[in-house]
Structures are given as C-alpha cells and as structure tokens.
C-alpha cells in the first residue's frame, strides 16, 4: 500500500512538473554560477597581476638606478619584512642565485608567466605548505634572470569557496525540489482522491452526494480544483433533477397506466361472466368499450414516446421557416366551433407574416394544445384571447393566450409541465395529462420560453416567447385555407 502510494506520487502530473522545474532551475543556477565564478576569479587574478606589476615596476626602478647589486639588496630588504606576500629569486648572468627564497625548487624560466605555479612556503619545507603563486619571470638586460611571485592563496580560497557554496546550494535545491514536488503532488493527489472517492459513492447510487471543495460546496472562489468540482456539482444537480424526474415519470406511468388497464380488465372480466351466465347476451358493446380503453392506452403511450423523441431533439433537422401567423390562424379556425359550443368567445390579434424557424407539425400541435387547454379548462361563456406579436429588438415573436378560467395557482405553475401532472380541479376533465408536457418539450426544442402568469382580473395567461435567433422570414403569405390542397393524396 505504502509502496503503491509512492508510485502514485511519482506518477502525478505535479511531480512530473516539479521535476521539470527542478531541472530548469538547476540549469539556470549552473549558468549563473559559471558566470559568477568566472567574474570573481578573473577579478581576483587581475588584482594579483596588478600587485605583481606594481612590485615589478618598483624593483625595475632600483635595477635601472643601481644595477643588479642594487636590485639584489632591495630584494633582500623586502624579504626581511614580515608577512609580505611576494617571493623572489634573482640570478646573475652565469645562473648563480644571488638572492631568493625558492630554497629547493629552481624557479621556472620562460619569461613572463601569468600562470599560477605551486612553490614552497618561505623558509619552510617545500612539501609542508604548498601554496599557489602567481609568478612573473623577467630576463634582465645584463643576462640575469629575475623571478617574482605573489601568493595566490586568496584566489584558491575563493575558488574553493565558490565551488563549495555551489555544491551545497545545488544539493539543497535538489532536496527542496524533491520534497516540494512530493508535497505538492501529495496535496494534489489528496484532492483528486477526495474527488474520486466522492464520485465512486455517486456512481454507487448516492446521487445526493457532491464533490468536496476547500471553500464550501458552492463556492467558485477557490482554485482550479474547486472550480472544476463546483462545475461538476452543478452538473450533478442537473443530473439528480433529471433522474428524479425519470423516477417520478416511471412512477406516474405505472400509476396512470394501471388505472385504465384495471378498467380494461374489469370490462373483460364482467363480459366473461355475462357470457357464462347469459350466452346469448350482446358482446359487441363490451368489446367496443374494451377497444376504446385500449386505444386510450395506446394514445398515452404514443404521446409519451413523442415527448421523449422531441426531448431527444430528434426532429431539429426538420426545421425550416414556419409562418406562425398562418399556423395560429389555422389552429384558431379549427377550434372556433369547439369554443362556440361552450359559448366561449375567441378573439385574436394576429398580424400577418410573423415567422419563426421550427418544425411546423410540432408548432401546430403545441399551439393546438395550448388553445385546447384554454377552451377545456375555462367554463362556458369564458373569454379567450390569442395574440401574436412580431419580433422585437431583443426577442423573437411572442404568442399570448389568455383566458378568464380558473387559472393555475402559482405554486403549481412549474409542475403542470410534468408528464401526467394534473391539477386537482381538472381531474374531471378529459385528457391524459401529457398535453403541457408535450408543449414544454416543443418549447425546449425550439429554444423558446414559456411563462404562466395571472390574467387579471382572473384566469391564466400563457406567454410563449421565441428566441430572437429563431425569427424567420417567409417569402410570401400563404393562403391559409381553400386552394391549399397539398393534403389530398392518393386520389
């Protein structure tokens, strides 16, 4: 388990990122170090050279004034001074050492030398203190050779110091990088694991559970994980609503279909008993009754599958410009006699040529359902007003259907669009409780909006607003009746 967690840590994206960063920072630190090393050491050797040059210039003056003997005594004087940084060696033309403190090693020849050479400490054992010296050999005019060296120990120390500092720095950086990236990865891993655990529970069926965030479930102010989790939580909310809807629909279907199936069964059962008791009794009316029940059930199933298909958006490819004015006039014309039979007045305000993009058949059915609802649910003598408004600045066309019927209580207004939902007051009227669910599905398919509101002084007002982008144009107003005989097939 422990092992696996290590492997997990190393595999995380943040660990890989940290590794990459460590590499990048390491390389740039190396470059910086190289620059510093070069600058510091060259500055120091320049300083050494300047010291050497000054000493040489001073001794050169003595040599020019008083020859090799003067130089020799000057060197001897200087060597006698304590803690002076220079070493000397002076040979005459014959190669004899006049003065100098390179006791065992002969000084290197070769003119001016800018390279550091190891030589013994002044007066001491050669092997005891090996110091680095910066040396300068000068061939004298009279054939002698003068050798001058300056202790280069501080340069050596600087180099050692710089290398050591870099070594420690690099080590510390590496350790910090590894530890830091592990810490970071562990943090990320913990968040991801928490999300994974939560999603596993959700997958196991706990749909009410939400993904954890550091700043509370709904806050969007957190880091990217919080934002991701918050978004997923919103998605889960939607899914939960949908699943609940599905469960409710299944329950409703079971309930609403059981009733007519039960009726059908009773009809058949009593017919069977009747037939046994009185074989000569008429069966046809009973069979008709049973067929009627079965047809009702089939209609309900048909409506359900239609709603499901519309919700799946299957029909959007049938979209085209639809003359909403003509469709509305048609629908009203169809329902006018039905309204008249109930002594209802049906008034209209429909400007010509208002069009939307949509599926004509579905729009017809939707508007028919709405008008039908208004007629069915208002009492006789009611007044129903249908109005169409052309597209405005920000909105597409708008249809309003107002009645002075019983209306719908505000609390119920969202629910009436559910499948099988029926107001208690309308249980007695005909219908399968799917009309408004279909309306809602068609409205959604068309990206439109539907609103139920009061229609003062009493009644319901249904407002249907199409999106601006769904506004369409129709080439010419089509005649709504008469000559339009496309429906006459197969004659």
């Amino acid at each position, binding site marked *: 388990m422990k092992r696996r967690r290590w492997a997990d840590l190393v595999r995380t994206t943040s660990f890989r990122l940290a590794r990459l960063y460590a590499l990048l920072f390491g390389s740039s630190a190396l470059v910086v170090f190289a620059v510093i090393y070069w600058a510091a050491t060259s500055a120091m050797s320049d300083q050494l050279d300047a010291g050497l040059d000054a000493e040489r210039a001073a001794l050169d003056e003595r040599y020019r004034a008083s020859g090799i003997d003067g130089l020799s005594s000057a060197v001897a004087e200087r060597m006698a001074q304590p803690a002076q940084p220079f070493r000397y060696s002076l040979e005459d033309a014959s190669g004899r050492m006049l003065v100098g403190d390179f006791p065992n090693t002969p000084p290197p020849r070769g003119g001016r030398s800018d390279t550091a050479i190891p030589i013994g400490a002044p007066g001491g054992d050669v092997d005891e203190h090996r110091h680095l010296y910066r040396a300068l050999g000068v061939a004298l005019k009279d054939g002698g050779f003068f050798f001058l060296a300056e202790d280069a120990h501080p340069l050596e120390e600087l180099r050692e110091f710089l290398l050591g500092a870099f070594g420690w720095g690099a080590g510390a950086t590496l350790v910090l990088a590894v530890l830091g990236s592990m810490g970071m990865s562990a943090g990320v891993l913990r968040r991801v694991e928490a999300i994974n655990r939560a999603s596993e529970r959700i997958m196991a069926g706990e749909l009410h559970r939400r993904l954890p965030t550091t700043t509370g479930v709904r806050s969007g102010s957190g880091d990217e994980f919080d934002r991701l989790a918050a978004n997923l939580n919103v998605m889960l909310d939607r899914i939960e609503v949908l699943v609940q809807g599905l469960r409710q629909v299944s329950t409703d279907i079971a309930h609403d279909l059981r009733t007519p199936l039960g009726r059908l069964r009773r009809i058949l059962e009593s017919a069977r008993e009747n037939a046994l008791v009185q074989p000569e009794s008429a069966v046809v009316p009973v069979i008709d009754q049973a067929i009627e029940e079965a047809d009702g059930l089939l209609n309900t199933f*048909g409506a359900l599958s239609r709603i499901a298909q519309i919700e799946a958006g299957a029909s959007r490819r049938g979209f085209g410009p639809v003359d909403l004015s003509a469709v509305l006039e048609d629908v009203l014309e169809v329902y006018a006699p039905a309204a008249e039979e109930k002594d209802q007045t049906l008034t209209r305000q429909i400007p010509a040529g208002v069009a939307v993009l949509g599926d004509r058949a579905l729009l017809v059915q939707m508007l028919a359902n709405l008008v039908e609802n208004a007629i069915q649910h208002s009492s006789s003598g009611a007044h129903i007003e249908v109005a169409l408004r052309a597209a405005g600045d920000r909105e597409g066309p708008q249809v309003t259907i107002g009645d002075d019927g019983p209306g719908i209580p505000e609390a119920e207004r969202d629910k009436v669009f559910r499948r099988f939902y029926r107001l208690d007051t309308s249980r007695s009227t005909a219908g399968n409780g799917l009309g408004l669910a279909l309306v809602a599905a068609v409205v959604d398919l068309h990206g439109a909006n539907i609103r139920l509101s009061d229609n003062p002084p009493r009644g319901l007002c249904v407002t249907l607003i199409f999106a601006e982008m769904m506004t369409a144009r129709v080439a010419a107003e089509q005649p709504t009746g008469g000559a339009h005989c496309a*429906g*006459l*097939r*197969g004659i």
Partner: protein
Amino acid sequence: MMKILVIEDDSDTANYIVKGLTQQGHVVDRAPDGRDGLFLAAGEKYDVLIVDRMLPGLDGLAIVKTIRGAGVKTPILFLTAVDGIDDRVEGLEAGGDDYLVKPFAFAELAARVNALFRRPALAEAGTALCVGELQMDLLRRIVRRGDQVIELQPREFRLLEYLMRHAGQLVTRTMLLEHVWDFHFDPQTTVVETHVSRLRSKLDQKQDDRSLIETVRGAGYRLREAPSLG
C-alpha cells in the same frame, strides 16, 4: 376488388391484415421479407402496396425507393411500429403515399387502402366534383345541392371536397385531421365532430330522413353516394 401486396415480416400482423382485406373481397399477396417483397412488387401488377418500415434484410424505405426508381407508380402505404416524428416525412419523401402507425384499427387500414386506390373516373373529373345532388365547382369554389347554393367556410369546403373525392368510402377521423387540417396528432377535443356536424347542418335539408354524411360508429364518416331525392 383490389389486388394488394402486403410486405410484413411479423406473421401475426400480416395474417390480421390479409384476413381482413380478403374478407372485404380483395386479393391479397404476402411477402415475409424485403427481398421477396421487392421481387413480387416488381413482377406483378398491384393496386396498392402495404409496406412495413422495419423489415429483415432490405428495409421498407429502401424497397419503396427501389420500386419508385423502377418507375412503378402503385400507391404505397407504410406501416411502422415506431411513431417517429421524422419517419412520416421520410416515408413520404421516399415515395410512400400514406403512413400508418402500428398498432392500428383495421377499419383505419381498410379506409386508407381504399382511399389510396386511384379511381380513374374521379381523377379525370378535373374542376368539378359531383356526388348525387351535390355539385362542387373547384375553381369558383361554389357548392350546390340541387339548385340551392350552399355557403361554406374555407375549411368546410375542404372537408366536403375530401369527403366528395372519397364518396361512398369510409373516411376516418385521423384521415380528416391529416388531410383537411394538416394535424398529425390526435386532439383531445372533438374538433372533427364539431366541424362535421356544422357541415351536416348546412348540407342536410328538412326532407332528409338520413344525413348525407353518415357516421360510421367507432370508425369515421361516409358521404352517401346516391342520396335519396326525398
């Protein structure tokens, strides 16, 4: 009497259709799959084809497209189990003439098959329709019963026109909804009934003992071909 080919793989449905249509006096052939169906439809002359949309092998849409491609003009009725919103349009575009969703009442199928059968006499009638005393001038949009002019609303005119074109035949409520109102769904309200009864009240005269438009219980309406002259 018509010669009808039924292309349907489900034997229950096929038997139901064949039995019913045979009882009505038609000659019915049956093909259990698309290949046989295509073979029969191409080889023999039928008055009406009834084609299931979902068939093993070759599906209904493909069969109809092939048949139409071969220049066969026989009226075709599609049957389908799926009440697909676009299926109707697809079927009609493929060359079908009518469309019926399973399960259906046999009366509905029979009425649609009858309506599909092209009767030459009527097709040639041109600008006027005449059924018994009823005369319809399609150009001037005037309807007469005997000498009397009958004023009709545009929709009532279309309703009567459809009934007259199918005079003597059963016309179902769904057929009227589809062809007169272009409604492809079943309204809850008795829309058709109210419109038919209005039309009736305009057509019928006091001396009629029976209405010109008969109600066929549980099925639809029929315009009487030879109304009694009182």
